[in-house]
């Protein structure tokens, strides 16, 4: 095992003890990126010189001092490009820092580079990037999941110690599951969204990708907290999330929703998650069968509400103040129509049209308002469940990674990849995905990671991290290395 395989926690110990220097760490990582990223294509942009420069003056006494962290291309980093993997933002240089970026800087982290994603975070495979698709480090023929596929692949391939992503319907947890790393979607309002290019504002949250659960807790300690610039960020107190990772979960009540083990789920995923549930029982947790009856409607609700918000959020990309503009517009309407036609990819266009439609006069009641009510039922499902249990166990994704190109023809098929993660965003609660096994190799498909999702109530990050940590320490799936 070399330096690049360290967890953030392990790396920090070595840095603090001066056994290694931040410069050595950055150099090792840059070498790794140079060696394998041409195949994985996790990064869109790496500023090696700036990273080396930052490493020279890194303060290793700080919480993330000298630790390089990769950033999904959806967050504004002052002076850096931020394209959201879209042609429409080509050439845009961010004039300000996202709040989370400021927090990482304050914690001493080195901002290493920008990771690939589905355009404007719309997708489940990172195939919707305007700059080419990212591949899964466990099998280059497979997709890494999405939309934060670049961040997941970078951490899964040990091209990053940790990364930031954003999760609107599963965009952190699903690629984490598919790339064999840990990904956490915080409770809505836990982490400031200021500086995150919005997809669906009422659902978006920024969260970490890490190699271990403890690292996720460490990053959440840095990222969490109220931000006066984000009106929806909570003033709820932030506990020290690393402090209670004791490994002891005796007496913890874990719910298993019967609706999540349905037909259509890959048998190997089903088996791995059921084995994880058994493991929890072994560790002293109490397993309780629960029901989340409105889950079956989550995807439908999501594709109404998220696209509606997106249709407004993406209206600002018009070629007036930033980004690209169509050549020689003949008038304002021509400028809008062609700039947006040339700048957006097909999935983004599809969602803008869908979102515009469900809000339009005559349809808003039937679609948008009705979907909001069903969302409330989904939310109530979770609140009722959390009266009985401390956390909920489910698969993160119904299948392991699928092959590149396999689902691009059917948007609806692609949407169903997020069937287990979407309800968590709709309810606003928190969720984490962590490795819980692998598929059996079959034909030319090698073994692929499987993810376990642990869902917690509002402000329940401490609980899901504690549960995840106990499982991880007793199994060791996280120690497996990808073939690349």
């Amino acid at each position, binding site marked *: 095992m070399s330096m690049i395989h360290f967890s953030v926690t392990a790396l920090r110990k070595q840095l603090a003890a001066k056994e290694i220097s931040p410069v050595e760490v950055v150099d090792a990582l840059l070498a790794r990126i140079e060696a394998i990223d041409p195949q994985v294509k996790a990064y869109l942009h790496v500023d090696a010189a700036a990273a080396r420069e930052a490493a020279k003056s890194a303060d290793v006494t700080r919480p993330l001092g000298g630790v390089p962290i990769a950033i999904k291309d959806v967050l504004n980093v002052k002076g850096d490009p931020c394209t959201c993997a879209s042609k429409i933002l080509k050439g845009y240089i961010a*004039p*300000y820092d996202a709040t989370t970026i400021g927090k990482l800087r304050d914690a001493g982290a080195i901002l290493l580079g920008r990771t690939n994603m589905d355009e404007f975070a719309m997708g489940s495979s990172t195939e919707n990037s305007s700059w080419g698709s990212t591949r899964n480090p466990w099998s280059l023929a497979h997709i890494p999941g999405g939309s934060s596929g670049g961040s997941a692949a970078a951490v899964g391939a040990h091209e990053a110690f940790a990364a930031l992503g954003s999760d609107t319907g599963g965009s952190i947890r699903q690629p984490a599951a598919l790339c064999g790393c840990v990904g956490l979607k915080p409770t809505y309002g836990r982490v400031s969204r200021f500086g*995150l290019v919005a997809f669906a504002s009422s659902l978006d949250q920024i969260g970490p990708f890490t190699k271990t659960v403890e690292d996720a807790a460490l990053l959440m300690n840095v990222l969490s907290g109220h931000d*006066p610039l984000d*009106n*929806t960020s909570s003033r709820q107190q932030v506990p020290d999330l690393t402090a209670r990772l004791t490994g002891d979960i005796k007496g913890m009540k874990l719910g298993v929703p019967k609706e999540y083990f349905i037909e259509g789920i890959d048998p190997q995923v089903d088996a791995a998650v059921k084995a994880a549930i058994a493991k929890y029982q072994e560790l002293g947790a109490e397993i309780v069968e629960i029901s989340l009856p409105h889950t079956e409607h989550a995807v439908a609700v999501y594709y109404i509400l998220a696209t509606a918000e997106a*249709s407004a959020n993406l209206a*600002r990309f*018009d070629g007036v103040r930033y980004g690209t503009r169509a050549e020689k517009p003949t008038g304002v309407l021509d400028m809008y129509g062609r700039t947006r036609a040339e700048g957006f990819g097909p999935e983004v266009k599809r969602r803008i049209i869908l979102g515009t439609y469900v*809000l339009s006069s005559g349809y808003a009641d039937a679609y948008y308002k009705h979907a909001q009510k069903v969302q409330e039922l989904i939310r109530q499902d979770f609140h009722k469940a959390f009266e009985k249990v401390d956390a909920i166990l489910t698969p993160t994704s119904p299948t392991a990674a699928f092959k590149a190109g396999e689902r691009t023809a059917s948007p609806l098929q692609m949407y169903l990849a997020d069937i287990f993660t979407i309800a968590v965003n709709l309810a606003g609660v928190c969720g984490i995905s962590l490795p819980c096994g692998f598929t059996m190799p079959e034909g030319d498909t090698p073994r692929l990671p499987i993810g376990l999702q642990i869902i917690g109530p509002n402000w329940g990050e401490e609980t899901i991290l504690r549960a995840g940590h106990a499982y991880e320490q007793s199994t060791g799936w996280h120690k497996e290395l990808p073939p690349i």
Partner: protein
Amino acid sequence: MEYEAVIGLEVHVQLKTNTKMFCGCINKYGGLPNTHVCPICLGMPGVMPTPNHDAVVKTILTGLMLECNIATRCKFDRKNYFYPDMPKNYQISQYDEPLCEGGAVTLNLLAYPKDAQKLETTVVDKKVRLVRIHLEEDVAKSQHDEGQSGVDFNRAGTPLMEIVSEADMRTPEEAFAYLTALKQILIYGNVSDADMEKGQLRCDVNVSVRPKGQEKFGTKCEIKNLNSISAVRRSLKYEIDRQIEVVSEGGTIRQETRRWNDVKGETAVMRIKEQAHDYRYFPEPDLLPLNTSLGLRSEAEVLMPELPSAKKARLATQYGVSEYQASVLSSEVALADYFEKAAEAAKDKGLVANFLLNDYLAINSDLSTIAVPAPWFSELANELTAGKINSKQAKEVFGLMVSDNPGNLTPLEIIKAKGFVQVTDTGALEAWCDQAIANGARSVADYKAGKVAALNALKGQVMKLSKGQANPQTVGEILEQKLKAL
């Protein structure tokens, strides 16, 4: 057939705050283009709005002043439409849960145009009901050249109230009075400077006509580009005449937006390429709803000023000024405040009101340039009341005090410098009276014959003899006695 007009107004008012509605940039008219901007009001990718506390409170205050119902809960919505002056291509506004609903603007007499104040058709104290008041953000300003437009985002994000009236007005004069009275209240509450020339108050007019007695509304037209209250009146007069002419000749009115040309004095159809309008309102997910019962309403209540009608009543009773004077004084809060200071030490408050309204404002259009310390009014009035100078002298002193006073002399100093004294010494007065009677045989005869007014001629003689310094009242008494004794 006789027709009547039906008029409703949508008024946009920029709030007087330090900063913009959703970011900390300065809220200030003018400035070099794109210097009062930040990533938030430019709608850069990833930014989020944070609502301005004072803008919310001032909107509630406006609602309280106009007797609206203040919603306990309200929220912001996104209004979607594309235009280069809109940074996000949606405007943060309020749709189905505005801050204020209902309420009314009262059209007091002085709010009407001067030439309409005495008309029989003028309905004094008519209440024009309001539909709602909501809070939103202003858009950028653009300037147009050959073939291109330039956009300046300094104004983008300025806190903006939209005040929507019911279609309660029937004449251009009522629309004029509505805007005048509304503006007065906005200034009273220090909510806005409401200067139409600076675009701080902007008005869109909806107008239709119908045969008198008919209940159903006619087809309405919207008039835009109205840059003054008088333009609103004139444009309405033009547009109502136009519509009546069309209808009475059997034509039909098309629903359209018309632009007022102030120079030509006419409205014309705006050539906007017809685009489907569908604002697709939905709740702004970046902002939490507001609860006005958690302090916001009570903060606004503390700011509640004495309103024009209450001030008018109080000035009349407290200072004994006439109802008309009280109306004029309360028409502007600055005038009323000045009057109260000016009259504070006066024994006869009415004299101060006369000086201020008849002698000062008759010549000067407003108070903004007055350089006279308010207490001087009392000082001057009290000299007059005490009989130390007469009213003619007082007028002269006043004139010098306000407009020709390089030494910044007080009224007492001016009186002294002018040598103004009022002779009340009966000996001297009697001598002048005797002289006047001796020289005015004709007047004496007239008086004796029962023409009481002849006394004034004699009085004038005495005043002349005294070089204006005699106390006219005492002179009158002495003359009367002497004439009776003849």
